[in-house]
């Protein structure tokens, strides 16, 4: 994807968007919108990791509104729970306290489960079902994957998707000469 001027959703200019809503049904909608915004933004700019205290989304200067740290925590927790975010740093402990301080969040545009089903569907359509084989490299950079969600995907992420598929019995992995030549046999 080419970096271009990011189009913010309408809600980004709606002041209450920056107040975590007290009414649960409304809050659900709001968190959904924040999740979508975070995913779209990070994907558009190809940013793999969200650094909580650096993220420019929390503050809309033109609007004069910003999320406070409690609000941000709520949004981050929701992102993690949805499967679209993963903490990269775990607990830290200092001499005085041990606390879970999460600052770096890996952004997963597609969860491993979603990647797994996308890959499997692609495999069926392209005739790999029933024993067809392709390499890991072909999955992220092959000619046939144009427009697929896993095109250009991080290899590690791709493998996690493939693990899910293996677990489901829909494929097996085997080693190639290099890691990108590792193969996948689909069923």
């Amino acid at each position, binding site marked *: 994807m080419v970096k271009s001027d990011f189009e913010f959703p309408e809600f980004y200019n709606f002041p209450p968007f920056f107040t975590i809503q007290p009414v649960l049904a*409304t809050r659900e909608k709001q968190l959904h919108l924040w999740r979508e915004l975070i995913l779209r933004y990070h994907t558009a700019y190809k940013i793999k990791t969200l650094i909580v205290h650096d993220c420019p989304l929390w503050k809309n200067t033109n609007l004069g509104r910003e999320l406070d740290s409690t609000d941000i925590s709520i949004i981050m927790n929701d992102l993690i729970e949805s499967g679209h975010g993963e903490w990269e740093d775990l607990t830290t402990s200092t001499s005085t306290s041990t606390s879970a301080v999460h600052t770096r969040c890996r952004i997963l545009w597609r969860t491993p489960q979603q990647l797994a089903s996308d890959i499997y569907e692609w495999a069926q359509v392209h005739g790999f079902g029933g024993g067809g084989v392709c390499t890991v490299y072909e999955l992220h950079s092959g000619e046939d994957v144009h427009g697929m969600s896993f095109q250009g995907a991080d290899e590690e992420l791709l493998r996690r998707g493939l693990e899910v598929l293996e677990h489901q019995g829909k494929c097996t992995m085997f080693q190639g000469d290099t890691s990108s030549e590792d193969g996948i046999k689909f069923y």
Partner: protein
Amino acid sequence: TMAHRRRGVGVGRSSGPKFSKKAEELKAMSAESAMETVKKLEVKITDFAKKHKSEIQEDPALRQKFLQMCAPLGIDPLLSKKGFWGSLLGMGDFYYELAVKVAEVCVASRSRNGGIISVAEVKNILSQRGTKFQLAGQSTKKYSRDDIATAISKLSTLGGGFRTVKVGASTMIVSVPTELDSDHMEIMKLAQEEEGCVTVNTVRQETQWSEERAKRALDLLLSQGMAWLDMDRGVESYWFPSVWKEGFGMDDA
């Protein structure tokens, strides 16, 4: 009706058989002439419709005027697809399809506006999608806000909780069973004057209501998702997505 008005002019107040016979005669006459007047008007309207059929089909403004002429006579040219009016004007399908599309837009938008949306916004959404309708055998994109309101009024006769409400000069469509009283409408009207936002204080200033009354109405709107809360530097305000969106560049009627 005419018969009613006649009664007020003293007919029936005096006693005596002579008077009451006269009263009955007058009543019968006025009822008869009322019926005749209505029949004459019906004929006129039918003639008008026949003569201006294509204009009614193509021009939303004329169509609206025509419907307004029909209403006081109890004529509903949209009542059925078949029958006299259905065959003459062929508009039944159009309003039905429009109503279905409008209902879809309303339901899809509920999670963000609580089930209240302006007709203007609905029209905008349908226009952006390039939605077309069949009107008298032709595909058309030309329909007005009035058409949308008319389509919704058809829906409400079928049940389903859809109804239109007036907020200031705007017409909103409510698609949830929530009971909105005049206090709620008043608040939304105030919000309309302030780009979609009110506070307890601004409501009280304009209405002279007690704090309790203002809060009660605002809390209902908040709980229904029709209002969202904005807490900014200690000040709480209530924003209405349906009103706020209306302030966006909407196309005209």
